[in-house]
């Protein structure tokens, strides 16, 4: 009996290690740089299941500060960068990632067509998850004031006014309005929702100082009057903390953070039970939701040997194979992987995709406009200058940066 037991255990072990080895066998080094949120941790750990070559990961919130420098050398330090549709642009501009067509043909049979990011006819990245900002709210609070989940930002303002009037919360709206990247992203959302276009057709010349830009800024200002007065220092983490503490009833939040929002220690039962998710809102009578769609995916570096590129591709394809989906990983993201069934936490992102939201633009110069907006809009939010002046400043700052980068003459 004892012998049988040992034998069975040994066989089982052998089978497990054999199947793992069969599933992912690589012959060169792999080094991945990327962001640190749970879904990307899962992908990194998946790649590290591979054997035959060393697999290193560097998953950090500062990934964008190091990925370019780490891929510009020859040979590159990182064989792969995990990026989103905004950050792939920088790597494309500097020509440090390679086309993946031949590797997809050889090893990518399991990948779905819509996972392949194709630029100018070449596959440049493999997407594994989608993301979007959408409404997160407290259904118990909205029940108290007798209103439904807001579908427009105007409804959101009305609900906030009522919550404050009834004395339920002093500052019921939350928002990641921290000066810099976050503030610019909220402007992008609102500007797209108001029907604005960032650039003159077919040119790199910014055109945001218009009626839609002013409408977007005025809506942001109105919302900020129902926010914690420190809103210009609040990023997504601080906004989530306000929500967890029960100080906020309505906020526009990232789908990738919504699933784990109330999992932290010390969140009251009331906040846990009251949490609800809905799709993104529209603004100023527009039909396009005031949000943007995002994908996260991986790339393969250009300045590495073909063997390393192949090993990287195999390891990361293994990390996002359909079998990696289970009860735990399914809630971490809206996976684009075959066989993924949406969890309740994913409803906001799905609603965003189905209601005609637009993806964040992948233009070579969009990042410069984003940075310029982040630096110049805070004066308006503090009431120090007019909306027109803030938009003119952002355009001027962008123009100087775009001239320097060779995007404008």
């Amino acid at each position, binding site marked *: 009996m004892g012998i049988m037991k040992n034998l069975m255990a040994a066989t089982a072990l052998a089978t497990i290690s054999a199947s793992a080895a069969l599933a992912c066998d690589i012959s060169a080094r792999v080094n991945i740089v990327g962001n640190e949120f749970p879904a990307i941790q899962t992908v990194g750990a998946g790649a590290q299941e591979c054997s035959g070559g060393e697999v290193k990961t560097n998953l950090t919130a500062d990934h964008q500060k190091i990925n370019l420098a780490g891929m510009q050398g020859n040979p590159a330090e990182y064989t792969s960068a995990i990026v989103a549709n905004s950050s792939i642009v*920088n790597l494309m501009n500097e020509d440090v990632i390679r086309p993946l067509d031949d590797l997809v043909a050889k090893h990518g049979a399991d990948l779905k067509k819509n996972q392949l990011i194709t630029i100018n006819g070449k596959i440049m990245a493999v997407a594994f998850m989608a993301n979007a900002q959408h409404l997160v709210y407290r259904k118990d609070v909205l029940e108290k004031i007798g209103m439904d989940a807001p579908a427009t930002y105007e409804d959101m303002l009305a609900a906030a006014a009522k919550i404050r009037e009834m004395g339920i919360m002093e500052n019921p709206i939350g928002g990641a309005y921290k000066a810099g990247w976050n503030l610019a992203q909220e402007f992008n959302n609102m500007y797209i929702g108001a029907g604005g276009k960032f650039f003159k057709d077919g040119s790199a010349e910014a055109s945001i100082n218009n009626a839609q830009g002013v409408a977007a800024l005025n809506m942001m200002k109105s919302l900020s009057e129902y926010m*914690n007065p*420190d809103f210009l220092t609040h990023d997504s983490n601080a906004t989530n903390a306000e929500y967890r503490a029960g100080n906020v009833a309505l906020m526009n939040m990232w789908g990738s953070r919504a699933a784990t929002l109330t999992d932290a220690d010390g969140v009251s039962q009331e906040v846990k039970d009251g949490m609800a998710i809905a799709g993104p809102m529209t603004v100023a009578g527009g039909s396009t939701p005031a949000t943007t769609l995002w*994908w996260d995916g991986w790339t393969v570096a250009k300045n590495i040997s073909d063997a390393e590129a192949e090993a990287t591709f195999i390891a990361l394809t293994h990390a996002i194979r359909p079998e990696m989906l289970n009860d735990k990983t399914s809630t971490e993201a809206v996976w684009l992987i075959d066989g993924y069934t949406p969890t309740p936490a994913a409803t906001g992102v799905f609603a965003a995709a189905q209601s005609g939201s637009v993806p964040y633009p992948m233009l070579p110069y969009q990042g*410069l406009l*984003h*940075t310029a907006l982040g630096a110049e809009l805070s004066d308006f939010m*503090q009431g120090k200058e007019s909306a027109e002046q803030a938009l003119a400043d952002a355009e001027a700052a962008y123009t100087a940066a775009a001239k320097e980068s060779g*995007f404008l003459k």
Partner: protein
Amino acid sequence: MRHSTFFWFFLPTGLAMLLFIAFPIVSVISQSVFTPHEAVFVESENCGPFGCTTETTIDQDATAALREAKPLGQFVGLQIYLDRGHLATSEVAAAWRSTDSMGAFFKTINNLPFYRAMGFTLTYTFTVTPLLIILGFAIAVAVNSLHRHLKGLVIFFSLLPMIVTPLIGSLILFWMVDSRGVLGNFLQWMADDPDLSLKASTGLTWIMLIVYGVWHSAPFAFVVFYAGLQTLPQDTLESSRIDGATRWQQIRYVVIPHIMPLVTFVALIQIMDNFRVLEPIIGFNAEAHARSLSWIILNDLNGETQLLSSAATTSVLTILGVSILLSPVLVRTWRDFNSKA
């Protein structure tokens, strides 16, 4: 000292200075007068999880050819120095022409990133430096008069602010002054204003940064002055006491003249440090209210698209700014040195 002895003695230092000071400055200056090549755009069809769109992308082959021909990029001379992100000459000239009062002129100038950053940087440097010297001196005199058993302990605690990493120190204070934090709540109670928020007011944010700067750097001045006090000529001090000098008179006419060279030294180091103020702005998330030259450099390097030429230009301007600020002190030291020799 023989010339050959001096040469071999100085060689390692000279090499290190060349490698770590001169070369980086040359590299920064050359980066500031070159910019990337003009981008060659192509219209391309891009597809992904959300469908296909026609978008502008960069023509990699054409750009690679340009880079191959001229690896440094295009030479633009002082163009970056004069653009809106830096000295903004044409914007300043336009503001001068279009405004009719000095107030309106300065308001327009203050809207330009470089001048706004200079405004904060100079205010910070010229309030923090004298305040930290005064505070450091006061602590040094106080500690020096303590009983010797207490000194060690008090010195250790006085040094703590300098030991704490600036980024961490400012972050901890940032949480404490939050309107829901310990200090923030206390200030609201003091001012009898439940809506008071330090982080939402530009004036209070500046004061908070300055107080933090003094708190962080005072220990440095304290340590230097305390060391100076140990060499105080006891005879002079004693004779002044016999002459009936009060404690204040002893400090004014004996102690201060004795440590004056150290005051110059501390001022020199601290002006340099404070002109490069960065960590408190990051730690306090204060970029909406206060920006420094170093913050501009970091922002240029941290954006989704790096602006290397712009960052290099601001670096050169920072070096120039530090040199201008230090020149009076350096000239004075040079004169003292010559008069002694």
